[in-house]
């Protein structure tokens, strides 16, 4: 005897509920690809460093004066964005707007400081392979920060328009996830360009 199997699901979510939805997977694949991009940039840094002679580093002891506080600022902005997301979860729109707005401003300051830091460098894009990879990697990251700022601004706007609830908020969570990613990647960039020389790489 054969028996026909048939799925009879009950009470299924319609469309994305909470973080549950294919959009979340979409954000995940996008982030995986972007993470790969940064790993190739860092690979290029280490490859160039390892195949060049001593003196490749234009700053054997990179100044942390601006970079370290800026790093902490970016990390803090990640926490603030998370705080905003919690606001959506708890139906506190004011808190959400505050979180996204503040995270946006912190990201903006980070970008500004990064531009200042570029400006203060004694070398330019074409000085040497070190300078090139430094500016291109931090430039790629800055580009991602700018994209992240657009996303935070959009989320802020949409929250202001009162689009989201604890259930319907995948867009918010995906956007905040992207911002976490932008911040996490910076840690790798920062560790590579600012800290690894102190550990002896390239010196």
């Amino acid at each position: 005897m054969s028996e026909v199997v048939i799925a009879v699901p009950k009470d299924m979510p319609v469309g994305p509920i909470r973080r549950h939805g294919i959009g979340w997977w979409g954000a995940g694949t996008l982030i995986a690809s972007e993470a790969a991009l940064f790993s190739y940039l860092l690979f290029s840094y280490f490859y160039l460093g390892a195949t060049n002679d001593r003196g490749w580093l234009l700053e054997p002891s990179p100044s942390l004066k601006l970079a370290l506080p800026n790093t902490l600022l970016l990390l803090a902005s990640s926490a603030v964005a998370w705080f905003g997301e919690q606001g959506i979860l708890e139906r506190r729109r004011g808190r959400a707007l505050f979180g996204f707005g503040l995270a946006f401003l912190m990201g903006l300051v980070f970008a500004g400081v990064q531009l200042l830091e570029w400006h203060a460098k004694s070398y330019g894009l074409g000085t040497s392979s070190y300078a090139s990879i430094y500016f291109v990697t931090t430039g790629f990251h800055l580009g991602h920060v700018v994209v992240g700022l657009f996303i935070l601004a959009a989320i802020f706007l949409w929250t202001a328009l009162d689009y989201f609830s604890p259930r319907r908020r995948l867009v918010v969570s995906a956007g905040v996830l992207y911002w976490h990613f932008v911040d996490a990647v910076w840690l790798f960039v920062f560790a590579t360009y600012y800290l690894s020389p102190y550990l002896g790489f390239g010196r």
Partner: protein
Amino acid sequence: MKAADFRTPRVGIDSVEHQGKLYRHWERPEGVWGFLGSVDHKEIGIRYIVTAFVFLALGGLEALVMRMQLAGPNRTLLTPEQYDQLFSTHGMTMIFLYASPILSGFSNYLWPLLLGSRDMAFPRLNALSYWIYLASGLFLYAGFLTGNGPNDGWFNYVPYASKAFNPGLNEDFYALGMVFLGISVTVGAANFIVTAFRTRAPGMSIDRMPILIWGTLTASVANLVVIPAVSLAFFLLWMDRQFGTHFFDTAGGGQALLWQHLFWIFGHPWVYAIVLPAMGMVSDGLPVFCRRPLASYSLVALSTVATMILGFGVWVHHMFATGLPGLGLAFFSGASIAITIPSAVAVFAWLATIWLGRPVITTAFLFFASMIILFVIGGVSGFMTASVPVDWQLTDTYFVVAHLHYVLIGINVFPVAGAVYFWFPKMTGRMLDERLGRWNFWIMFAGFNIAFLPMHLTGLLGMPRRVYTYNDYPGWHALNLLTSVGSVIFALGILLLFINVAKSLKGKATAGANPWDAPTLEWSLPSPPPPYNFAVIPTVASRHPLWEGRLDESSKRSSLDRGLLLDQGKETIATSALDAGPDMILEMPQDSVAPLVLALGLSGLFVGLLLKSWTLTALGGVVLTVALFMWLWPRRDLREREAEAAHV
């Protein structure tokens, strides 16, 4: 009406009234806007296939011109400059604009049908992927047609590609065009991955997916993580050329070999990405004509994944002669030999399928079965180049040219031709002519082997690749003439394929739903399928839903006629990643021109970068940003936001 957050979907059978509802939700409007805004995977798939075949024809014509130049020693039909652009454009066209997109096209068309779904996971992203492919293909060919085609081979080694040695726009077209095309491949890969994991019909657990799904899924995972390597390489090259950075020039502390690492980290997995889906076509198509299930399904699926995992670790075998240290060479040599194992699994599984089955000789069968031997020939020559000391002699001679054509034509073009014969009835409702098909197959098969089998010997006699002419050394003339003759025969074979298609399109649609008596879900649908694919979402109980009654491997039967109706909107179902349990109702996006606008914005941006017109670049950027904003704006119909304001 407040849309419900949760719903128990109705289960039922197909009816005229039900179909009417589905048509209203799924059918796209007629006219130009309907065409430009379509997000139907079937339409996009066919666009991919047609476009890729146009590029195949162009690449083939380029090859024929080169073969005229090489038909005899010291011929002067082409100048070195023309020859260099031709062979580079030929490689670029075949590898990037034909081999990968043709498989994306078939997968796009077939995946939802194979999976029992109504569309891909991200239909608009799918449209975007196609539009960018088209735009970047036109961008790259704009270079070639203005005399600025790539001229440094498809792998484009620096420093010859650098401005100092290559001052024209050629390499700028190529570099920017490849970054552009990379976006298409990346978003396409993301779409395939999510589709495979989340939109299978209930019951189609991961061990019941057709092998084509395994092939394209594996290729997509690879593409997702390796495309950034090549996009980065081309971007850095463009920076070196236009902004004086020093990634690749030695004088500024750059490294020529950095290019080769970045390129081949991408390049080798890519080779598998453009054959694994085609191998999947054979694994799914061949058994139909052997009247039995594929032998050792699990091992074949596993070998698909294993090939790619090993494929990540063999990129250095393109760099054996670059003076790397011996220990590294030994490792990569070993890995390159080991990668033979999973390929052997697939070959023996196909052979077993034929031996244990009852082969019915059709044109599709001939293409699929011949691929086995072509794959083996391409495989063993790869095995030879995997041995470092042997490779030091073989590399960069015509032996490698023969090898890569057996791989790319043998494992891509032949299965694709088979796939055309196999699935054309599904796409159009029309059969291809079998008599003409036999001619088509045998002429292609003969032409291909006449052209490329002797080429191994040309290589063993020492003819280097990428030479625009050659001296009359003993044996070289005859072998090259043979190759040129064979290439013309092969081209005639391809022409017959096109003729057969054109002829059938004029004929009547008499194919019916399942002309081959094949076992998978797509054959349960009318040919061509309606815009919504499945009137009811089927439940799958085995790998061969349409053969269950006859194979009787278990007492469980799939439910094809009765299933989820999902007719309250443009809806389909999402299932869990591994065992495909019903998970949620997906609201699918309506047709949209946002993908096209976005692709146009990107085109403006890339043309602006090429011409260094920052106004155009910025304009493209603005269009792109606005299109993206409109696209992502949370929509009620997609349940991306509350139906009404959360706080009233």
